[in-house]
């Protein structure tokens, strides 16, 4: 078991390394930041000085080597724009994205799983068919459009909720969250719903498919033959089996939500990592972009690993390296 975990860790590390090389190479080709930083009247000599200062005159592979060694210490250089440490900038904004993503996934699961089970139990009922049609709408509609519509409805027309920005935050140790106060929630709810729409649709589909697959199995029939209450048949026998694909996919989607928050944060002016990324791309603030991408790569790779391990914990049939 241990050997397998180590092997997976090494694989993950390799993936991160390769991605870092790709990211670095790609970003290297984006514009010339020196032109942006220096004033238009700067002489070539001055530009050269800046270039040398930032280490941009060294050969590519050497820059990469320096990049890697610094990256290992989580030093991605300073923002071209503000001069602050790139990594610090991102970490400052992470809790905002974190609470948004977490609330969105929570809503998706809380709503999606029961609806999906219902749709799987009674596929022909009117409600089930409405749920399935609704789910098509849910994942077809572009994310930003849903956000816009929500703003139009709840902020402009009804005036119930704010159209953007983050609410008041509270300190929770090193990080600040707006999740746990009412004002903060008012700001959180629309962007979270925007993300949740698509994810909820996905969870409904996965849950329904898993339910449809598990229901005809012999062990469900046997559970009924034992005279168990239907509540237990569905709530224990069925649920434990469908949770496996749901948690697996839900876990992976969490990573996607983190990344796609870029769009939602732009629509709602949410001060998270995503908004920072867009601004940095537009402003050619390379260190921040690199730091963001590397953080995402590591995060996703770790998430994949965690989901894999979680899968083996959930499904007793699959134990890493264990005998059947």
């Amino acid at each position, binding site marked *: 078991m241990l050997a397998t975990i180590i092997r997976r860790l090494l694989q993950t590390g390799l*993936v991160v390394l390769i991605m870092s090389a790709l990211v670095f190479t790609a970003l290297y080709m984006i514009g010339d930041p020196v032109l942006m930083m220096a004033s238009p009247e700067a002489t070539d000599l001055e530009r050269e000085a800046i270039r040398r200062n930032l280490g941009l005159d060294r050969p590519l592979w050497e820059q990469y080597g320096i990049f890697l060694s610094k990256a290992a210490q989580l030093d991605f250089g300073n923002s071209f724009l503000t001069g602050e440490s790139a990594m610090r900038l991102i970490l400052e904004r992470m809790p905002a994205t974190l609470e948004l993503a977490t609330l969105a996934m929570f809503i998706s699961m809380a709503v999606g799983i029961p609806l999906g089970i219902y749709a799987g139990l009674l596929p022909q009922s009117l409600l089930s068919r409405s749920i399935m049609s609704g789910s098509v709408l849910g994942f*077809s*509609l572009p994310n*930003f459009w849903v956000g816009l519509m929500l703003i139009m409805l709840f902020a402009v027309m009804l005036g119930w909720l704010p159209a953007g920005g983050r609410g008041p935050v509270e300190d929770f140790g090193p990080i600040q969250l707006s999740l746990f106060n009412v004002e903060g929630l008012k700001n959180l709810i629309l962007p979270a719903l925007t993300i949740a729409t698509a994810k909820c649709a996905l969870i409904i589909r996965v849950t329904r498919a898993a339910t449809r697959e598990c229901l005809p199995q012999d062990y469900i029939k046997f559970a009924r033959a034992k005279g168990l209450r239907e509540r237990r048949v569905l709530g224990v026998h069925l649920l434990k089996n469908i949770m496996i694909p749901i948690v697996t996919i839900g876990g992976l989607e969490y990573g996607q939500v983190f990344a796609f928050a*870029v769009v939602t944060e732009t629509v709602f002016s949410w001060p998270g990592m995503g908004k920072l990324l*867009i601004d940095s791309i537009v402003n*050619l603030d390379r260190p921040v972009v690199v730091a963001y*991408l590397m953080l*995402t790569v590591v995060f996703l790779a770790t998430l994949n690993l965690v989901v894999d391990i979680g899968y083996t914990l959930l499904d007793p049939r699959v134990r890493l390296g264990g005998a059947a």
Partner: protein
Amino acid sequence: MSRVVEPVAGATEAGASPRSPQAGRWRRFVAQFTSSKAAVAGLVVLLLSIAAAVFAPWIAPQNPFDLATLDIMDAKLPPGSTNYDGSLTYWLGTDGQARDVLSAILYGLRISLFVGFVSVLAAFAIGTAVGLVAAYFGGRIDALLMRIVDMQLSFPSILVALVLLAMLGKGIDKVIIALVVVQWAYFARAARAAAIVERNKEYVEAARCMALSWHRILWRHVLPNCIPPLMVIATIDLAHAIALEATLSFLGVGVPVTEPSLGMLISNGFEFLLSGTYWICFFPGIALAIVVVAINLVGDHLRDILNPRNEV
């Protein structure tokens, strides 16, 4: 337990000729497709949208990019208003530059659909080729190619597109390239899966024994059978591509201002949303939503029909 037996020989299609299994399959496909009213509605909407886009220059009340026809006094007029001499009705209102929103939508539809179709076609071609090659040769080539595909697929498409566009700059061709890079992996994986199923079938063995060249086997024999699942992916991917392009344009990194797609129109209208001039952003948004949902309905139903598990 309950045996359902097909009607036995004798009940064939009228005019049993060697072509009729194909004709029968097509007829059955059409019947299955039309069984879903939603999918048919989606297809109709899609075809209408394509027609509207193709014929936009003729049916649009105004050419919104011909600056000479714009009258700045007509900016931000609500839907239903007319211009000063009543010759032109702005059915959906005008935007900040006095462009007729309806016309802008029709022209924007062109760009959106064009980008969507071209990128899907290219991704289809590239991805399928890669997938087929991987499946046919197997072994190391297969493992390597699929590793690349997996890595690509695990990374959120929006980030890949953003980085690419940051590198490549603005322009419709750059957007198409970015979309192709994001999408080809889906096709590769599906093509490979379908091809592997085919590879193990006997007729491929037979063709190999006859020493047919490998690309002939792939092209003439394996590919036609891989088409159904790929069609499903292509349809759903078309919707994704259009939505992704809209998202990228909305974020400001997609198509240039001179050739606005629906996403760009929505982006332009966003700033006016909060002040009450909703139509600049709302109607292009509705148009986008309708097109994307329509394509998804078609693709969803196609998936139900062409899913191998449903085939008897």
